[in-house]
């Protein structure tokens, strides 16, 4: 299906991005070009090919269920834009 301005707006919303009109038209142009190139993959018959998400076959990497010391809370919260009482602070989410 053709990529339109609507597609860009839909994808931007899923991505939690607000785009300016200028950005939308530029990204629409780029995306059309890039996706057209991606369509090259359709030349290949992959009906019987298993997908590879990870090249190294490592499965189920577990560790012992043992608690270990973590980083100090103050140090972690120091990077938060806003914190209070040892918690991250966000705008009200329930009415």
């Amino acid at each position, binding site marked *: *299906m053709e*990529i339109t301005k609507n*597609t*860009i707006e839909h*994808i*931007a919303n*899923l*991505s*939690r*991005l*607000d*785009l300016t009109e200028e*950005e939308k038209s*530029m*990204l629409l142009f*780029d*995306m059309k*070009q*890039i*996706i057209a*190139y*991606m369509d*090259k*993959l*359709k*030349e*290949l018959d*992959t009906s019987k*090919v*298993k*997908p*590879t*998400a*990870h*090249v*190294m076959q*490592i499965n189920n*990497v577990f*560790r012992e269920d043992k608690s270990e010391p973590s*980083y*100090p809370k103050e*140090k*972690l919260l*120091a*990077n*938060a*834009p*806003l914190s209070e009482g040892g918690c*991250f602070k*966000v*705008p*009200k*989410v329930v009415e």
Partner: protein
Amino acid sequence: MELCELTIHEMNEFIKHKKVSAVEITKSFLRRIEKIDFTIGSYLSVLGEDAVKRAVEVQKRIDKGEVNSYLSGIPVAIKDNICTEGIKTTCASKMLQNFVPPYNATVIKKLLEEDAVIIGKLNMDEFAMGSSTENSYFKLTKNPWDIDRVPGGSSGGAAAAVAANLTAFAIGSDTGGSIRQPASFCGVVGMKPTYGVVSRFGLIAFASSLDQIGPLTKDVTDCAIVLNSITGYDPMDSTSLNFKYPDYTKALVNDVKGLKVGIPKEYMGNGLDSEVKTAVLEAVKVLKQLGAQCEEFSFSLTEHAIAAYYIISSAEGSSNLARYDGVKYGYRAEKFSDLLDLYKKSRSEGFGTEAKRRILLGTYVLSSGYYDEYYKKALQVRTLIKNEFDEAFEKYDVVLGPAAPTTAYKFGENADNPLGMYLGDIYTVSANLAGLPGLVVPCGFDSKGLPIGLQLVSKPFGESTLLKVGFSFEQNTDHNKKARIRGELEYGI
């Protein structure tokens, strides 16, 4: 000769025999940075006094004879997407402009254990998305061979800093060529190791199934020395490989007799600059004279690899960048109406254009209705690419080719053409898709005086083979010597 022009192994000789101290070496680099980095622009932050303090401590241990590492007292600079405790780590993004990691990446821990001296953090494309370092939020990095040209990317600061003697060596990351292509553009040695041999713990993620940390150095011997330090199993990275790691310096043998080399004909065809091609063919000639058997073969999925790579890396990138929400760390917009608006405004103001482009692309190929058509398809093609490499490595020890289709280009030349920029990664992305190690070494210059890089790829855990070939090539040609910048840099500014 200035101290900062030496390789790690040369500096180590001086340190061991007490001819110079770690402090003198560190100061030599800091002086050089002060003098020329306002022109080159490779560093995002420089640890002046802290680095000297650390060098003093290290020297005390050296004086007591407590240190027995190649890296003790050797200055290193780190790409700014690798976490350094207490030292700003920005990913060259407005999003992480003020991010100070509460912990060290495993590679940093390892380097510090060997008494290396961190002297600063290096410029890069924002979140490692790019091939020219022009996507940095903060500044441009110039190619030391011609300051009107890009250093390559995304580890552009790392390659430029090593080339211009602004650090003894650098640690970068490579998702689709981000160590190898800038190494090629700047005339230094760069290696992307096998996926899983260097811990990614503390590497700020771009595409988790492709990212790998690796060294940028002045020669192949230094590359082996740094690999010895940074490789190894790490329980903090679930993709880290647990096996007996070799001593990579043992691979530094001048002998390629009987080595089987395959050259993908698709790497030498359309789109390859003729001067780059000539230099690569010259390199093949050298290896043949040294007793290697070289022949062409077909790597038919070369162009498909680019498409698969940009689908997979953008998909993983969009997922990894979802964590930047303006809450836990990173940039938060000043004005917003509610939580959703906080997310949107913070992300829209915090990310640069290329990051947004990749987020959109990644979200698109993962979105309902397109997942099978693009994402799953790309993962299937990834299997085919891996199979094609497996077949090649039944016949060959290494696959040889250029690292990039051209030498360093001018600023802005590809900036308005994202697809064109992506296509420049054609020779490097397949090694990431298949998890293979790749080494780039200098193999000459074009008529503009710009360095050309030779790329060697091997099967998983083939680092030692690559080092052996790279070392032999370096010993039997003068390309490395010519690619080492000596003396003062005069930029006439």
